[in-house]
Structures are given as structure tokens and as C-alpha cells.
């Protein structure tokens, strides 16, 4: 089901079947030309599949934005080891709720994307890792997988193509860090999700120490349309160097929050005003986070002229990220926002790397004190300094994810920190305390 009304400004590629009655069933999927892209790909050479994905300019939709075709080409196809396809459905980046909608409404499109990746790299087994909180999606996925086996779209000699593929749904049990690819692979092997040092990258040493293609749910969702309509058509939907659409989660202070499929390069102002219905309660925009809470924050001025794509955001020293857009109005305390974001990263840090473990914990303590009105002027610089000393000093990006928004909030909203220096709780709201701190 859909949790929000669609917008006429959407471009429906991944979500083209949304709204179809019983869209998750294999019968309706097959009726809508489902699995035809797999059949087409089964007649192509593996290199041709990868070339088509490269032409599409599809970039990883989990947050990092690495070119997908290139990632697939790193898999040593001739290796005697088995190869695996792993789907990252651990969606945990605060602000992000798109993979949930995709899997719930069209699980067979994900299976088809995985099968095509399997053809491309000669993999014959795959795992869909879904965060534990999404239990109902495990059921949706298991039902879809069972249907696909029953109708001969999974298993041995799929539809007479000679291609075998087995697919499994795998549940996590609550860990943000497992969204990071190497931590996810550890978790899939029944261990703590401690990140691995790289290289070697998962393309060479991944699941079960074998070559592995690991992509986000949304990335696999894009693959059937790329094969069906051609990479060039997908590329043309986006901007140079980044093709297609992006599942975009509008969250926070807009009138119509929701998950929308928008072309890459969609203007931010238009997205807020026309897709999201503008800032709620007639207020003004104060801050904008483009793709999950780990991205550096933009001010209202910086959003002018920005578009939702990798380069536009990189030009503003932030990231497109996961598509979890967080829109913050002018009545919000940015110290409180920074504190809540830091509480999350401190909670999720696994403790493996000291700069992350200690940095997030100290930042949480300092920001808690600060928001309560007990901060000092030196604390403002201290927050920035601790965060900067975490950058690039950890195995996985969790340390960076905690540091980046913090640095940007201190730099861009320093006056709000100074406003907390009067020895009283937060001046921006009557109830100044944050629960549970």
C-alpha cells in the first residue's frame, strides 16, 4: 500500500506499477511485462549487460553513489569461487523510508534486478538482507520468492535459459551500522556487524569470502528498466554522470511529506514547494538535509539554485546521500537537532574504532549540556574540533556520518549555540529538555 498521495511531478520508472491492485503478486507482475528484462538479459553476453548498466549512468542509491556498472565489472567473473548477489535492505539512515515502499509494492521487480545482476557476474545465489524492524517485508519477500520458485523464475534452469539462481531473505536484528556494506557482510555471516578493512572490496572478497555484488534495494530496482528500455533511456532521465530517478523521502516540516520518485536533477525549491506543498504552518525554511542525517546541513540560502543530484550537492559540500530529505523550519533549535543526531550515532557506534566510539559519546555529552544551558563559549569550538578529529579516522563511514552534520551545524548556526550561553535551557522552545538524555 501507499502511505501518501503520489505527486503529478513524479517520473514513474521504479514505481510504474505502484497503485496496480495486488501489485506485489507475481501474476500482476507478469501481466505488466515482468521478468521480460531478465529473459532479454539471458540472451545477452555478461559484458553487454554490464555495458548497458554503465551506459545508464546508474549510481548506487544507498548513499555513496558509486557507479553500479563499474562495481559489477570489478567482480572476477572467471574466479573458480562461487559469486553472490547481496541486496542491502538494511535501510536505517535517519530520514530514509524508500526501500520499504519499493519492496512492499513490487518485490518481484527486486527479484528480477537481482537475477540480471546474477547473469552479469555469473552468480547463482543471492541474499536480501532486510532490517529486523521490517518484519512484514520479510514476509512479503518470502512470499514473492516462493511464487517465483513456483512459476519457474527462481531455481534450476529458469525458464529454460540454463541459468540457475537461488534467493533467500535474511533478517537483521537492529543495527544501523549493518547498512555499511562490509558490516552487513559480517552480519550475514552470523557475526557482530564490525566493518572489515578494505581493500579487498566485496566485489573480490565479499559474502562468505567470495566475490560479491552488493547494492542497495533501489539500485537493483532500476536494473530491469535499464535492460528493458536501454541504458541510454535511463541515462536521459537524469543529469550528465547520473542517470534515472531517485526515490526521495520528504520528511520534516513540509505540508505533504511522503516518498516520491523524482528525476535526478530535480530543483530543490520546486521539490519543497510543489511536491512537498511548501513549508508547513506558513513558516520559512531554516535548514535542509539532502539525504539522511549523515549529510552536512545546508542553509536556506545555500538551497537557492540547488538540484537533487550528486554534483549539485557535492558543489555545496554535502551529499545526495540516501534520498532521505529532512526539511527544518525556522522555529527549530539547531542545537537540539545536532544533539538528537549525535545521540543516534553514539547509540549506533559499535566501539571498534576509538575516534568514533569516544567522539560520538563526548559530543553527545557536550551537546546535552549545551542544550540544557550549561555550555561554555569554548564548548562551541570543542564540538567542531572533536568532530573534525573523527573525520577519516575510522574503518567504516559511521564516524564521518556523525562528524559531518555536526561540523556543518556548528559552522553555519554558530549564533544558535551562542544563544544558549545565557545559563538557561534552550531559548528556542519552552520545553527545553530532550527526553531520555
Amino acid at each position, binding site marked *: 500500500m501507499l*502511505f*501518501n498521495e503520489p505527486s503529478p511531478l513524479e517520473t514513474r520508472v521504479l514505481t510504474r506499477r505502484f497503485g496496480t491492485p495486488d501489485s506485489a503478486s507475481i501474476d500482476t507482475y507478469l501481466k505488466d511485462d515482468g521478468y521480460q528484462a531478465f529473459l532479454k538479459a539471458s540472451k545477452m553476453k555478461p559484458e553487454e549487460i554490464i555495458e548497458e548498466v554503465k551506459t545508464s549512468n546508474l549510481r548506487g542509491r544507498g548513499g555513496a553513489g558509486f557507479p553500479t556498472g563499474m562495481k559489477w565489472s570489478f567482480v572476477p567473473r572467471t574466479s573458480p569461487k*562461487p559469486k553472490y548477489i547481496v541486496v542491502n535492505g538494511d*535501510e*536505517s*539512515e*535517519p*530520514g*530514509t*523510508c524508500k*526501500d*520499504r515502499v519499493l519492496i512492499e509494492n513490487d518485490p518481484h521487480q527486486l527479484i528480477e534486478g537481482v537475477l540480471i545482476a546474477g547473469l552479469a557476474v555469473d552468480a547463482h*545465489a543471492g541474499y536480501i538482507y532486510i*532490517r*529486523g*524492524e*521490517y*518484519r*512484514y517485508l520479510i514476509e512479503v519477500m518470502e512470499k514473492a520468492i516462493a511464487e517465483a520458485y513456483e512459476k519457474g523464475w527462481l531455481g534450476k534452469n529458469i525458464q529454460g535459459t540454463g541459468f540457475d539462481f537461488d534467493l*533467500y531473505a*535474511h*533478517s*537483521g*536484528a*537492529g*543495527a*544501523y551500522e549493518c547498512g555499511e556494506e562490509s558490516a552487513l557482510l559480517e*552480519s*550475514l*555471516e*552470523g*557475526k*557482530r*556487524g564490525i566493518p572489515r578493512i578494505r581493500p579487498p572490496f566485496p566485489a573480490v572478497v565479499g559474502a*562468505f569470502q567470495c566475490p560479491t555484488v552488493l547494492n542497495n534495494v533501489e539500485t537493483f530496482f532500476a536494473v530491469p528498466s535499464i535492460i528493458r528500455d536501454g541504458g541510454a533511456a535511463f541515462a536521459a532521465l537524469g543529469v550528465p554522470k547520473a542517470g534515472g530517478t531517485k526515490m526521495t*523521502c*520528504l*520528511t*520534516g*516540516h513540509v505540508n505533504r*511529506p*511522503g*516518498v516520491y520518485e523524482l528525476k535526478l536533477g530535480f530543483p530543490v525549491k520546486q521539490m519543497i514547494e510543489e511536491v512537498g506543498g511548501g513549508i508547513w504552518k506558513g513558516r520559512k525554511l531554516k535548514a535542509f538535509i539532502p539525504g539522511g*542525517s549523515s549529510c552536512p546541513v545546508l542553509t536556506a540560502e545555500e538551497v537557492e539554485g540547488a538540484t537533487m543530484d550528486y554534483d549539485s550537492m557535492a558543489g555545496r559540500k554535502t551529499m545526495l546521500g540516501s534520498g*532521505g530529505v*529532512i526539511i*527544518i523550519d525556522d522555529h*527549530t533549535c539547531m542545537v*537540539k*537537532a545536532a544533539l*538528537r*543526531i549525535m545521540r*543516534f550515532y553514539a*547509540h*549506533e557506534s*559499535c566501539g571498534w574504532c576509538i575516534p568514533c566510539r569516544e567522539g560520538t559519546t563526548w559530543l553527545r555529552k557536550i551537546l546535552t549540556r549545551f542544550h540544557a544551558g550549561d555550555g561554555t563559549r569554548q564548548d562551541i569550538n570543542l564540538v567542531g574540533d572533536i568532530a573534525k578529529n573523527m573525520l577519516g579516522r575510522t574503518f567504516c563511514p559511521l564516524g564521518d556520518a556523525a562528524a559531518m552534520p555536526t561540523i556543518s551545524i556548528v559552522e553555519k548556526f554558530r549564533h544558535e549555540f551562542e544563544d544558549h550561553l545565557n545559563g538557561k535551557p534552550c531559548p528556542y522552545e519552552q*520545553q527545553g529538555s*530532550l*527526553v*531520555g538524555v
Partner: protein
Amino acid sequence: MTFSPALEERFAKLLKSYPPGRQRSALVPMLLYAQDEVGSITDELIDEIATRIGITALQVTEVMSYYSMLHRTPMGKYHVQVCTNISCLLHDGDKLYEHACRKLGIGHKEVTADGQISLEEVECMGACSWAPAIQVNYDFHHKVTPEQLDGIIDGLRKKQ
């Protein structure tokens, strides 16, 4: 230790889902599914799963302590989880959590005296566009007002 036939079936399927010699991969899902049935990760459960997978109880304990959904002490029959992470916070998720504390008379990871309802302030659960969100066990509730939360909790009390 014995489990329901449905859980035994799930375990058997899980143990066949991974490459030969990689049965340990089933550990995290097995723990979560078992917890749903047993109520918490007990010492007996740890020993049982360790035996079935062929690892030590210490290895199981080491892994389980990493995952926030796995817990050693029982939660209520109905586990109410309120998200206060950033997107929910912007829709007063923190105030909703405080309201839930008052309504139930318990705090973070506490259980009501009758053992029926427990409360947890949780991190992002992936319902950010429909904030503030809560989960009761695995069921999502979106755009929850304090009044709706009262209604949900009253409904749970009646179900007991």
C-alpha cells in the same frame, strides 16, 4: 528445548539457506525469531541455538549483544516503540514518547507491573515521511497523535 512447529520449520529452512559450512549465518535471524516466541534471549535459548549451529554459547552471546532488537530480559507482550529520531522529532516524537511514559507510568525499556506492555524509545525505524511513528511489536502506526496513542494503548489493555 522445543519450539513451535512453525518455528522449527523456519529454523530448518534457515539452516539450509547458506553455503555448506556456513550455518552460522542463520544465527541472527534464529535469535530474533526465537525471541519472538520465547520472549527474551534466555541462557537456555543461547545453549540451544549454539548447539544447533555448532558454535559456543559464548559466541552466541557475543553476537547477540551487538544487536539492539535482541534482549536478555523479557519485554511486555506488547512492546511499544516510539521513534524520537530527527524526522520524528521534527513532528514532536519526543513529546509523544513523554506522553507514552506518562500514560503507561513506565520509562525506557521498562515493563508494566502486569508484564503486558513495555515501552522503548527507539532510533529511526524507517517511517520518516509519516512521522511521528511507533511500532507495537512489528506493527507500524504512522502520524500518531497523543490521542491516537492513548487509543492504541487502551486497545492493547483490552486485548489482554
